[in-house]
């Protein structure tokens, strides 16, 4: 376990060793506020809640999370440091989990830095802070799901750009799994059971439930299982492809 933490700490420090971390956080905060105030009509709605803020998170994550996750394994494989890491006395699973946790902690930090908007809404009115907390938890879980997908895509290739594009595409499919855009592709031939199953994979549906303040175990479990699935897939892919 402590090796997982060691790997996570090194990875996290790596983000801040280059301008990547600062650029990312800055852009995340700028876009999050721009969406909230301009597209979301934060003031015009006249309601003391953060719905306009959280509603855009799935779309923000769609492009920003792959930007974090693309380097997770692609860079290790390109530079060859994956060989150094995996010949230390650590398990593949510790490495996969450690690097994922670093990326997740970084996202959590970026998310936490949106606190001024929470202060603002509390200053302007009296929102239901329980709902806001639930939405933050939901947003963080969704970010974890995106990151796990990104980690898996990053393990597939040595090229970060390819990893980014793959992650965006797969995340997009998961985001819209419950919507006609994705489901129409299956309607013609797939049985209803399969279509329902695919529809239930939608990030948006699960996130919307949580962000309304409903912390249903099934929604939480959904994100946890998604992360587990894609992290296990990451480990399997790495095991096969790490030396290529």
């Amino acid at each position, binding site marked *: 376990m402590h*090796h997982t933490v*060691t*790997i996570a700490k*090194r990875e996290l*420090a*790596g983000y801040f*060793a*280059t301008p990547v971390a600062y650029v990312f956080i800055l852009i995340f905060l700028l876009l999050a506020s721009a969406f909230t105030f301009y597209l979301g009509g934060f003031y015009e709605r006249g309601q003391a809640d953060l719905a306009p803020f959280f509603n855009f998170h799935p779309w923000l994550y769609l492009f920003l999370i792959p930007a974090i996750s693309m380097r997770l394994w692609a860079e290790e494989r390109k*530079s*060859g*440091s994956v*060989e*150094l890491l*995996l*010949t*230390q*006395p*650590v*398990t593949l699973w510790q490495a996969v989990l450690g690097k994922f946790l670093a990326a997740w902690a970084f996202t959590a930090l970026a998310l936490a830095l949106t606190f001024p908007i929470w202060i603002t809404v509390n200053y302007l009115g009296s929102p239901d802070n329980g709902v806001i907390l639930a939405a933050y938890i939901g947003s963080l879980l969704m970010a974890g799901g995106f990151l796990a997908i990104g980690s898996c895509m990053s393990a597939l290739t040595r090229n970060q750009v390819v990893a980014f594009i793959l992650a965006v595409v797969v995340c997009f499919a998961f985001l819209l799994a419950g919507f006609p855009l994705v489901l129409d592709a299956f309607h013609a031939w797939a049985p209803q059971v399969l279509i329902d199953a695919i529809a239930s994979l939608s990030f948006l549906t699960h996130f919307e439930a949580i962000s309304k303040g409903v912390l249903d175990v099934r929604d939480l479990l959904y994100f946890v299982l998604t992360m587990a699935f894609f992290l296990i897939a990451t480990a399997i892919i790495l*095991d096969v492809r*790490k*030396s290529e």
Partner: protein
Amino acid sequence: MIKTERLTKRYESLTAVDHVSFEARPGEVLGFLGPNGAGKTTTMRMIAGFIAPTGGTASICGHDIEREPLAAKAKLGYLPEGAPSYGEMSVRGFLEFIADLRDLTGAARRIRLEQVTERLGLGSVAAQTIDTLSKGFRRRVGIAQAILHDPPVLILDEPTDGLDPNQKHEVRALINEMAAEKTIVVSTHILEEVEAVCTRAIIIARGRIVADDTPQGLAARSRYHNAVSLRLGRPEQLAAARAALVALPQVESVETDAQGLRLTALPRAGAALLADVNAITARDGFALQALELESGRLDEVFRSITT
């Protein structure tokens, strides 16, 4: 110690490593030689636990690399090919990270970090990021990482690649220093390195072991083993000297080098030439600049075995 038994790695269309079996013991510096693409790196990666063999086994100090990977890796220091590291880290930060993974703590940790930094001359660059270092320094960071936990077994994949002659000398001195109590495997395609550091050499070609011998034993396989070379001071004597050498009953053949001043007499199997050659130069009055008894040319043995 290291032990491999019928270690094999097959990819779809080719067998990169084919039934490689060997043992290396403490006190041995085993040179792993072979042309590029012969399977050296693949073999080392399997022993280091980076890639899984398709067949056979490898163990480090009795720990099978597949059944007890963590115990095996704990006994091993490994320098991967190209000495990869994390470029954005400082040298000190990187070595601290490795010390964490190697579970070094307290005074032992501090002492090892100091010793290794000192021994590899990394003190002056400890605060620099690895990306900004020269190739030689990066290679030394890689070696520092491998020996940090003072492992009983060391595998170094091309430890002197890209180093200048002084740095090569330093690294070889370090290997010789550690050789007494450790088992060391060094892969290289630099033959002078084998003579400089190895007590034993394995030559691998197309995935198979084609020779396993001491460097002296390998050199003795050369047709130049016990050959006598002489360099003449006066070019006009060349033809006469050549004729005199060819006339010696023990001489198999005589070769002239490209500049035309050096003659090499190759002996018939098992024959000793030096005394005879000495006698004819005295008898015929050849002006010699140099006379040399050859122990054998490794590069020639290497070429004849691997092609």
